[in-house]
C-alpha cells in the first residue's frame, strides 16, 4: 500500500537521512520546514532516490496558523498518512540565562508547535484507521540537567504528549513511536564540548525505520542510551543536584 510521510523539521540532517530512507522504499514525502530553498533541493534528492512524490512545504512551529493548510494537503493523498517530527531547537543554556524569554521559542519548537500540529492530524489518522507518528524527543528530556534543562523540559513535555497520543491512537489502529536519540552528529551538536558516543544521522534513521516496522513504543537510539539514561535516572536527587553531567 502506498504510504505518505510528512516530515516536520526536514532541513535537519536526521530528517534528511530519514526522508532518504523512506524515499528508497518508494513512499511519498512531504518535506516541511522554514527554509523553502533548502527543502526544494532535498525534495529533488528524494525524488531521484525513489520517492513516488516529493514536495517541499512551509512549516513553522511558531506559526500554527499555517498547520491547517498542511493537513489539507495531506488529506488529498490516498493511502496511509504518517508523520515524523524532527523539529527542535537548542540554544546554549547561557543564552537562555541572558535572555529568559528564549524559553517560549524553545517550548514552541520542541513541544507545543509539533503537539498542536499532531493534535490536528490525529483525526485524519483515526478516520483512515491507521498510520504512524514518529516523534523525535531527546535523552535530555529524561532528567533535567544544568547544561540544557530548558530544552530538556520542552522535550519531556513532548514525550508525555506522545505517550498520551499513543494511548489515544492505538484504539483506531494508528501508532506512535517515541524516539529518544542520544548525541547525534548534527549541526546542533557540531563543535559542542563534551560530546561522546556520537551517532551518525543515518544510524538514527535506520533505528527509527526498524522501530516503525516493529511498532515499538519508546526507542532509544543508539540502543545503549536506554541503559545510560536508566543509570542517570536512578541517581538519587540529593546527589544528582550536585553533579554536572
Amino acid at each position: 500500500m502506498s504510504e505518505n510521510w510528512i516530515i516536520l523539521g526536514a532541513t535537519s540532517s536526521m530528517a534528511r537521512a530519514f526522508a532518504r530512507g523512506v524515499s528508497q522504499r518508494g513512499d511519498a514525502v512531504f518535506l516541511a520546514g522554514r527554509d523553502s530553498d533548502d527543502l526544494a533541493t532535498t525534495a529533488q534528492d528524494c525524488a531521484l532516490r525513489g520517492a513516488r512524490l516529493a514536495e517541499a512545504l512551509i512549516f513553522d512551529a511558531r506559526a500554527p496558523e499555517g498547520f491547517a493548510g498542511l493537513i489539507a494537503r495531506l488529506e488529498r493523498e490516498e493511502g496511509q498518512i504518517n508523520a515524523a517530527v524532527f523539529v527542535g531547537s537548542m540554544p546554549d543554556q547561557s543564552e537562555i540565562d541572558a535572555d529568559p524569554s528564549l524559553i517560549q521559542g524553545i517550548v514552541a519548537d520542541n513541544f507545543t508547535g509539533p503537539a498542536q500540529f499532531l493534535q490536528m492530524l490525529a483525526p485524519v489518522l483515526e478516520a483512515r484507521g491507521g498510520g504512524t507518528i514518529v516523534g523525535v524527543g531527546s535523552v535530555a528530556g529524561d532528567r533535567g540537567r544544568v547544561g540544557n534543562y530548558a530544552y530538556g523540559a520542552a522535550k519531556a513535555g513532548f514525550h508525555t504528549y506522545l505517550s498520551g497520543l499513543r494511548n489515544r491512537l492505538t484504539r483506531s489502529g494508528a501508532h506512535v513511536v517515541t524516539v529518544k536519540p542520544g548525541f547525534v552528529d548534527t549541526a546542533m551538536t557540531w563543535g559542542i564540548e563534551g560530546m561522546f558516543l556520537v551517532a551518525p544521522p543515518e544510524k538514527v534513521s535506520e533505528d527509527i525505520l526498524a522501530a516503525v516496522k516493529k511498532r515499538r513504543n519508546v526507542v532509544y537510539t543508539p540502543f545503549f542510551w536506554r541503559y545510560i539514561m536508566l543509570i542517570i535516572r536512578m541517581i538519587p536527587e540529593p546527589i544528582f543536584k550536585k553533579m554536572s553531567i
Partner: protein
Amino acid sequence: MRWKRTEYTGWGRAVHASAEIARPERLSSLRAVLSESPAPAIGQLRSYGDAALNDDGKVIDMTRLDRIIGFDAESGVVEVEAGAMIGDLGRIFAARGWIPPVMPGTGFATVGGCIANDVHGKNHHVVGSFGQHVTEITLFQGDKTRKVTPDRTADLFKATVGGLGQTGVIASAKISLMPCKGDMMVLTERRVDGWDEFLAALENSRADYNVGWIDATAKGSNLGRGILEEGEITSGVSPTIGRAREVPFNAPHWALSAPVVRMFNEAYYRRVPVGGRTTVKPISAPFFPLDAIHNWNRLYGKRGFHQFQCVVPVAEVQTLRQMLELVANSGLASPLAVLKRMGGGRAGYMSFPMDGLTLAVDFPNRSAARVLIGNLERMTEDAGGRVYLAKDALMAPERIEAMYPEHALWLKAVRKADPDGAMTTDLVRRLKLRAPS
C-alpha cells in the same frame, strides 16, 4: 556557524593537521560561512597526503552537502552538491541506465574531490578524466557565486578542474552521465607472467575497463608478474551485497612486513586459475574493491603509509621497469601495486593524466620508504613524467615546473580567483604552488 577544532589526516595517515572545521548542511549556510571566513573545502579525506590539510587554519567540511539537485533524463546530465559521493551516484543511476563516466578507485570520493583532483578511472584510456565530463561548476568565492563552464569561462574551468581547490569552494556541479546497460560487470581476470607480457597485455586489451595488479615483491624472472583485470558493464540480477567489514583498530607494524606481503601476494596471484576466469559482479565490487573493508588504511598501523603514483610517457617505459626493480628489491612494498595504461585525456592545467603508463605502489611510512619514494620521484621527473598530487605528501617543490608545465597558467588564474590566498592548503604550501616564481 560553530567551528570544531579537529585533528585529522589524509587517507595515508602519515601527515597530520589540526584545524577549525565548519560543516554547513545547507548551501545558504555554506555561503554565510564563506563570506565571513573563506577557507578551503574538504570532503571524505580520500586524498592520501596533505591535499586536504590546513594545519592551524580553517577548513569547510562539505560532506553534508551531498544531495542530487537535478537530473535530465534526456541528456543524462546530473547536478549534484559537491559532497555527494561518487559511489552513491553510481549506485543510484546505474540501476536506471546511467553511470558516471569516470569513477576513481574509491566510491567514497566526493564529487568536489573528483573535480579538484581531476581523477581518472579504470577506463581512462577510453573516456578520459573526470573533468572532461563536467559541464558546469558552481563555485563560491567569498560572497560571490560563479558558474564555471569549459567553454565560456575556460581559463577558470581549467584552473578549477585538477586545481586542488585553489579557485574557491566547489558548491555543486553538473556531470554528463554515460548510458550503461545495467549495474553489473563482466570481469575477466588473467595471470600475467612478467613485465613484458604485462605491457603487451595492457596494450592489447580491448576492454572498456582494465587495470593491472602487480606483485611488487616478485623479483628476477617473475618481476612484473600480476593479474590483468578487464571489465565490461552489463545487465543482470544483482545479489545482495554483503555488509562492509571494518578494520577496527591500528594493525601492529608487522602486519604488512615483507614476509607477510610476499605470502599474501603469492596467494593473491594464485587465486586466479592458470587459465584465467570470468565472473559477473555488481559494479561496486570491481570499481571499488577496497571499499568493502572500511578503514583499511589502519592496516598500516599508526604511522600510516604513503602511496607513490606516477605516470610516464610510453617511450620511457623502461624507467617504470627500473622503478619496479627498485621497489621489489627494497622489500618495502605493500600488496597494493597497480599498473595501468593511460590515455591523454585531462581537463585542467594541473591535471595528472598523460598518454603513458601509470604505476601506483603503497609503502608503510618508514624512513627507508621515504628515501625510496624520493628516488622514484627523481626518476619520474627524468623520464618526463609526473607524480599524482592527490597521493603525494613528500615531493619537493623543485620538481613541479618540470612535471606540470602549465603550472604558470594555473597560478595566474588562481591569483585572480583567490587573491588573498584564503584557499591555501598544506600541500600548496609544501610544493610552493602559489609562491612567486
